C-alpha cells in the first residue's frame, strides 16, 4: 500500500487518525439513535453503565471481548499478508466442532485442563482446516480468497446445521444441540482474577479462555514482528512482487498464513462452548467472526490495538443488551450498525480525513518551510 500523502508523526498516524475515524462512526450512530427518537447521550451513559458499572457487567464485557480478540487476531494475521479473510465466522463455527468432539469424548475422563488442551488443539485444527481450503485455492488455483471465504461461511453454516440436527443431537432430544458436558468439559471462571480488583462477576461467564486469548496476542506479535516467517508475511502484504524477487515462496506463505488465521478463528469457539454453555448450540458464533473485521481494522492489525478494540466491542455487546432494557427501540441490531460504521470509517474511508490533518500538521511545523505545506496540500 503506497501512502499517497505526506508522512505524519507516529502518534497521529496510529493514535489520532484512528480516533477521529472512530469518533465519526459513533457520531453517525448517534444520529441513528436520534432518528429512532431516543437521546444519544442517555444511550451512551447507559452503555457505559451497563458495561462497566458493576462487576457482572465487566465480566460479560470481557467475556464478549475474548471472542473478538480471537477473531480480530485471525483477520489481522491475514491482513498482514495482504489477504482478506472474511471467513472468520465459518472458521469459528467449524472450530466449534473440534471443541464439541473433544468435550464429548473426554469430559467424563479428563479434568478440565486436559480436556481444554485437547479442545484447543481440536478447535485450532478444525478452524485451520476450514481456512486451509480457501488458502490453498488462492495460492494454487488463483481463486479469490474473499469470494471463497464468503462461500465457505455459508457452507459451514449448512454443515453445522446438518451436524447438529442429524449427527450430534442426543437421541430423543428436540433441540439442535449437543448434550451438556460434565465437569471435565467446563472451563473455570476467572472470578478470582476479578476479586483481586474487588469485583464480583456474579453469573458472568468470564473464563480462562480470556487468558488464552492474551497468550495468542503475544504469540501473534512474536510471529509477525519477531520471526522470519512474519517478515515474509509482511513483505507479501506490502508487495507480492518484491517477495517473489526475494525468493520467498508465495504459495507456502499464503497457505500457512490462512492456516494460522483459521486456527485463531477456530479457537474462538472455546469461549462460548466450554466457557459458557457447556454444550454446542446452533449459531453460537453470533457474528463474532464478522466483528473481528471491525476489530482488526480499528486495532490497525496490531495486538496492542486489537485488545482495546475488542473490549470496545465487548462494551457494545454487553452495554447494548442493557440499553435494550431501558430503550426498547434500541436492540442488539444497533451494534450491527455501529460495526458497519466502524468498518466504513476505519476501513474504507480511512484516508478521508488524512489530507486535512496532513495539511494541518504541515502548516503547524512548516512555518519555516512553506514548500512542504503546499506539497502536502496538493
Amino acid at each position: 500500500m503506497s501512502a499517497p500523502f505526506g508522512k505524519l508523526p507516529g502518534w497521529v498516524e496510529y493514535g489520532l487518525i484512528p480516533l477521529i475515524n472512530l469518533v465519526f462512526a459513533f457520531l453517525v450512530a448517534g444520529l441513528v439513535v436520534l432518528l429512532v427518537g431516543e437521546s444519544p447521550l442517555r444511550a451512551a451513559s447507559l452503555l457505559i453503565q451497563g458495561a462497566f458499572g458493576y462487576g457482572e457487567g465487566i465480566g460479560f464485557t470481557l467475556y464478549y471481548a475474548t471472542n473478538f480478540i480471537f477473531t480480530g487476531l485471525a483477520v489481522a494475521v491475514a491482513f498482514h499478508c495482504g489477504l482478506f479473510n472474511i471467513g472468520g465466522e465459518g472458521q469459528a463455527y467449524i472450530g466449534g466442532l473440534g471443541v464439541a468432539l473433544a468435550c464429548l469424548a473426554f469430559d467424563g475422563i479428563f479434568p478440565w485442563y486436559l480436556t481444554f488442551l485437547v479442545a484447543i488443539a481440536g478447535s485450532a485444527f478444525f478452524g485451520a482446516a476450514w481456512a486451509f481450503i480457501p488458502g490453498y485455492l488462492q495460492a494454487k488455483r488463483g481463486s479469490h480468497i474473499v469470494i471463497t471465504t464468503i462461500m465457505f461461511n455459508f457452507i459451514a453454516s449448512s454443515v453445522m446445521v446438518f451436524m447438529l440436527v442429524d449427527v450430534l443431537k442426543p437421541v430423543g432430544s428436540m433441540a439442535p444441540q449437543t448434550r451438556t458436558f460434565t465437569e471435565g468439559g467446563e472451563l473455570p471462571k476467572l472470578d478470582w482474577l476479578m476479586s483481586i480488583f474487588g469485583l464480583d462477576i456474579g453469573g458472568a461467564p468470564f473464563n480462562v479462555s480470556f487468558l488464552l486469548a492474551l497468550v495468542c496476542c503475544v504469540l501473534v506479535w512474536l510471529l509477525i514482528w519477531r520471526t522470519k516467517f512474519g517478515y515474509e508475511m509482511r513483505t507479501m502484504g506490502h508487495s507480492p512482487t518484491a517477495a517473489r524477487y526475494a525468493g520467498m515462496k508465495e504459495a507456502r506463505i499464503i497457505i500457512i498464513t490462512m492456516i494460522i488465521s483459521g486456527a485463531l478463528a477456530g479457537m474462538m469457539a472455546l469461549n462460548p462452548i466450554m466457557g459458557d454453555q457447556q454444550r454446542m448450540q446452533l449459531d453460537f458464533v453470533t457474528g463474532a467472526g464478522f466483528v473481528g473485521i471491525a476489530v482488526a481494522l480499528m486495532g490497525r492489525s496490531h495486538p496492542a490495538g486489537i485488545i482495546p478494540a475488542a473490549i470496545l466491542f465487548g462494551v457494545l455487546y454487553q452495554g447494548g443488551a442493557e440499553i435494550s432494557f431501558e430503550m426498547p427501540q434500541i436492540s442488539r441490531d444497533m451494534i450491527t450498525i455501529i460495526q458497519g460504521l466502524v468498518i466504513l470509517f476505519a476501513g474504507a474511508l480511512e484516508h478521508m480525513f488524512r489530507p486535512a490533518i496532513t495539511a494541518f500538521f504541515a502548516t503547524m511545523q512548516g512555518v519555516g518551510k512553506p514548500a512542504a505545506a503546499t506539497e502536502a496540500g496538493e
Partner: protein
Amino acid sequence: MDQAFGIMLVTLEGTIRLSVPLILAALAGLFSERSGVFDIGLEGKMLAAAFGGGAAAAVFQSAYLGLGVAILVSLALALVHGFASITQRGNQIVSGVAINFIALGATVILGQAWFRQGGRTPALTGDSRFQAVELPFADALADIPFLGPIYTNLISGHFVLTYFAFAMVPFTWWVLHRTRFGLRLRAVGENPGAVDTAGISVTRMRYLAVICCGILCGIAGAYLSMAVAAGFVKGMTAGKGFIALAALIFAKWRPVNVMFACLLFGFLDALGILLQGQSLPLIGTVPVQFMQALPYVLTVILLAGFIGKAIPPKAGGVPYVKER
C-alpha cells in the same frame, strides 16, 4: 404422468420466482464489477431497498411509490460505496462489508422504531403490493394439452418485475456490448489508463456504473418485499445477494450467462423445497442443508478452475490513480 407434469410445472414456476431477485442483483453487480468496482454489498443494498420499499408502500399505499423509494435507498448506499471506493480510493471489499452490516442493522432498528412489529413492515394489500399479471388469453388457452398449462402457469401470471428482470438480460447485453457507453464501461474495468488517455473520465464512468448497480439492486429489493412477500421481514434477503455474486462469477461476468446461472441456482433452491423430507430412489433422503449449500459449493469448484476458468475484469478492485 399428469402428476409428474404438474410437479415439473410447479418446480419450474418456483425456479422463475426464486431466480428473479438473483438475476436483478447479479446484473447490478455486473455493471459495477465490469467497470472495475467490486461489490460485495449487493446483499445489503437489496435488504435496505426491500425495507425502504416495503415501508414506503405501506405508508403511501402505492406499490410504485414503494418501488421508487426502494431504488432511492439502494442508490444512496451505492453512492456511499462509490464515494469510498472511487473518490476516496478505499478498499472496495471493506466498503461492501460495511454496507452489508449497516443495512442489516438499520433495517431492523428503523423498522422497529417506525412500525413496532418486531422489525416487520405492515402487511401490504391491494394497490400497495405488486399483483400478478395475467397475459392475454391465459384462461382461454389453459385447456390446450401440454402447451396450455405451460403458457398459463409458467409464462403468464408473474409480476411486472419478473418480466422486467428477464427483459433486462438482453438489454444489459445490448448496453454493454453494443453501445459506446458499454464499451467505455468495460474498458474502464480492463484498462482505465487507456480510457483516461482517450479523454474520458474514469471517475465519471465508474460512478455511472455504480448508479446502474444501485438502481437494479433497488428493484431486486422491491421484488422481495413488495411482490413475492407482502411486506418486509427482518433479514429477508437471507444471503441472496451473495448467491447473486456467486452467479455473477459463475457466469464469468457475461449477461446471458448470468441469467442461466441464476436460473440454475433458483432451480436448485426450488428443487430443495420440493425434495424436503422426500426419499429418492438409490440416494435416499437428501439433507436440505446439502441443497442449500450446493450453489456455494459449485461456485467454489468453478473458482478453483475445475469447470472452465472465471477471469474477473482486469482492473477490478483497483482504485484508479491519475498519473501526473
